[in-house]
């Protein structure tokens, strides 16, 4: 049964003999490092002085933490680092929780006991992402203003939830569809209520899939720039807006911006690094069905 046995690790397509395998390993390393290089360079620049950063590319220099302290302590832009970080955190986390709370029952309805028009419902969810946000931003702005929600976290929480819900419903549905029907029937015969079936039988099985979906929602919400800058120019500003504001009109700012960028992207990068294995397993489990 697929849930109990680990699928035999498929033989790789490439690299059957040892020589080729070794070469491929090296090649992969080189490609990996090259791919990562821009980020490496970014981090490097964060430790440079503005003088060093604004001259031709230097690999060796005298590193300094000054840029990092500059961005965390000053408030050259609209908000301080800690304020923007707090805004981001308290927008992304509640939004992702809300998304999961709404998407789990929806996925159940679409996968386990599908209603007749489930494909249409799924398509509707996806279609909500077709409207260019840029086109709808004016109505959103007006509605937000009328409800006194400009510059608040609430409006972003609501919008990020709507933004991520289609993806979450789509992915969770396919994970739920992976649960063998018999397992749920067994739970029914054993006398479990609907909530009990979800909680005790289904959720433990789809847990990696839930993690993968939640991570994707966090990534998209944390990195969202357009709505954040249009609807929350000042008080509700999130990390992406804060980073952009580090670009000042006067003088060189390359190193400072680099340092700011590193700090802003670090949380999501760390989360992604930690959860990547679960993400792949989650996707393999049933992102496709």
């Amino acid at each position: 049964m697929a849930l109990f046995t680990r699928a035999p690790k498929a033989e790789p397509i490439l690299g059957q003999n040892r020589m080729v395998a070794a070469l491929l390993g090296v090649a992969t390393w080189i490609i990996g490092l090259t791919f990562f290089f821009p980020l490496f360079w970014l981090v490097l620049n964060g430790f440079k002085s503005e003088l060093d950063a604004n001259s031709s590319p230097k690999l060796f220099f005298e590193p300094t933490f000054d840029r990092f302290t500059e961005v965390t302590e000053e408030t050259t832009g609209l908000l301080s680092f800690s304020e923007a970080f707090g805004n981001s955190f308290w927008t992304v986390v509640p939004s992702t929780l809300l998304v999961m709370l709404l998407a789990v029952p929806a996925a159940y309805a679409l996968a386990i006991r599908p209603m007749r028009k489930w494909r249409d419902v799924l398509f509707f969810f996806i279609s909500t992402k077709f409207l260019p946000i840029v086109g709808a931003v004016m109505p959103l702005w007006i509605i937000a203003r009328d409800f006194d929600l400009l510059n608040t976290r609430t409006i972003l929480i609501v919008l990020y939830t709507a933004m991520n819900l289609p993806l979450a419903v789509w992915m969770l549905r396919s994970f739920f569809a992976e649960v063998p029907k018999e397992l749920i029937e067994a739970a029914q015969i054993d006398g479990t209520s609907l909530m009990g079936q979800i909680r005790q039988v289904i959720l433990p099985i789809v847990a990696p899939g839930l993690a993968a979906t939640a991570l994707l929602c966090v990534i998209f919400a944390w990195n969202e720039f357009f709505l954040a800058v249009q609807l929350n120019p000042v008080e509700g500003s999130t990390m992406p807006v804060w980073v952009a504001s580090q670009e000042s009109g006067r003088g060189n700012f390359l190193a400072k911006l680099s340092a700011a960028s590193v700090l802003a992207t670090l949380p999501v990068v760390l989360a992604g690094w930690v959860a990547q294995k679960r993400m792949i397993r989650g996707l393999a489990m049933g992102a496709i069905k």
Partner: protein
Amino acid sequence: MSNAVVERERELRADEVRRAGEVKRLERRDGWKRRLPILPALLFTIVVTQIPFLFTLFYSLTDWRIDKPEPREFVGFENYGDLPGDKFFRDAAWVSVQMTVMAVLFSLIVGTLLAILLDRKFFGQGFVRTLLITPFLVMPVVAGFMWKSQMFSATFGVLNWIIELFGFEAVEFATKYPLASVVVVLVWQWSPFMMLIVLAGLQGQDSSVLEAARVDGATSFGIFRQITFPQLRPFLELGTLLGAIYLIQVYDHIDVVVGGQPAAKNLPFYIAQRSIGGGNVFGLASAYSIVVVIASIILANIGLRVLSNLLEDDS
């Protein structure tokens, strides 16, 4: 027939009718129980997305301009009529198509290649994989800034530093090749996403099928083409769908990398320009947005229902 028999028959028939009624009632209640769990998500989505959509639809039928002091007037489909004559719209639409297709296609290809390379055991596999997924986790504005000022820049960009090493002249990529520059950044960011999806697909392969193919004398390339690739198809379709949905809406990258140069201006950017970006013709911009939505729905319908099996039910 005696009265008793007639009576019995009538009873049986009444029983049947009652049973049919009970079953129907049960099925209807069952139908509601099935639909109920999806209602919260559905209602939320409808309220939050459809209200702005309806507003946009409404504005598209007016001649609303921020700079005109007169109040909004209803002009019907006049805004839509302006579309065919608007050269900039056509240009932006063409850019959208190019940008989306190239970005999706190349990130799929790069992502697949990376997945194939990663789907093997070698020293530090996990570490390299970690390196490779990072671009996807980075903020678009940061990625854009990074590539623009540190890679593409003619003055202190790394790419040009390498080019000059070989004796060639520095190229200001962002100004000379804006569309390509944006696509490069997009592909750099989205390849990891495709890579993850394809990796998931590769790991689900049945090793006995691959072994059989090797015994039959197939080359690595042949195995990929005839066995692995068909199996990967649903994964590739998923990657294309999700990628396209997000890549059509690209805005941040264009702003940061090329500052909105016309050659790299896609529809969302153009629409933003005509409305909040200084154009101030909100009515027109709304109409354009509606057109984009309709076109997207049509394309997606074709893609999903005809070409792909993603919505196939296998229960």
